[in-house]
């Protein structure tokens, strides 16, 4: 079972109280972008075994979108943070590096 702490209301919400929003930190390619960029934005998603950044919505709680860093293989949660950022905050990166020294980084 996955338990994520909502950064907006502080509730330790169990997976059934949340809705998944899939991969986080996507950069949008809209009008004016090349077909390859648009295709990648539209369809190409990371599917790592290991560290992954995701969007989640606290549907049955405060209703806010937030972001979470977790390991897809072990369900270990490294942390959650508000969604108004374009990259994971440094403290989350630090935590992941401490737990997964061979992790290749966010990019």
């Amino acid at each position, binding site marked *: 079972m996955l338990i994520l702490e909502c950064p*907006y*209301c*502080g*509730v*330790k*919400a*169990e997976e*059934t*109280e949340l809705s998944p929003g899939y991969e986080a930190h996507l950069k949008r390619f809209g009008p004016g972008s090349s077909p390859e960029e648009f295709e990648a934005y539209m369809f190409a998603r990371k599917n790592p075994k290991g560290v992954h950044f995701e969007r989640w919505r606290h*549907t*049955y*709680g*405060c*209703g*806010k979108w937030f972001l979470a860093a977790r390991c897809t293989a072990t369900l270990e949660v490294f942390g959650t943070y508000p969604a108004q950022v374009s990259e994971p905050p440094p403290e989350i990166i630090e935590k992941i590096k401490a737990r997964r020294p061979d992790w290749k980084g966010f990019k």
Partner: protein
Amino acid sequence: MSDPISALQGASFQGFASVREIGPVGMITLRAKGLKSLEKAVKSVTGTKLPAQRRIEVNGDRACAWMSPDEYLLMLPYADVRTALTSIAKSLAKEHFLAVDVSDARAVFRIEGEKADQVLQKLSPVDFETLQPGELRRTRAAQVAAALWQQDDGYTLVCFRSVASYVMGLLVHSAQPNAELKS
């Protein structure tokens, strides 16, 4: 004005805890964040201070609950909602806010008795051991959204009116005699 009618007209059940639908209760959803006069506007309606994160401030038959970083739920007698909306509009004039009367969109239940928490433990993924008095928890009751908090010798649960009979069914089933989780 026509008489307000609650969703289940006060249905009740007595099992290992008592369950009853109360209401109609006046409710106002107030969406606003970081406004100067917000504290004053809430106080003028409920007589309470602005609740901190996840808290509910109760003052007799009035209360103000924190629902999300930019949302509050004001509870008050059904008949006073209209004047309350006027008073909020006056206090928050020229500021960005939204206040809506949602009294008729909600159903409210009371679950009372020594083992009231056990009725809810079966329905919601909430750790009742760590739920503080005066803390409002938005969660789900089986398949529908609900908000609950401890008050006096029991719990109050708020859900949408459209699912009132579903929630009553859940509570009745959960509170069946001899169906306690622990005695």
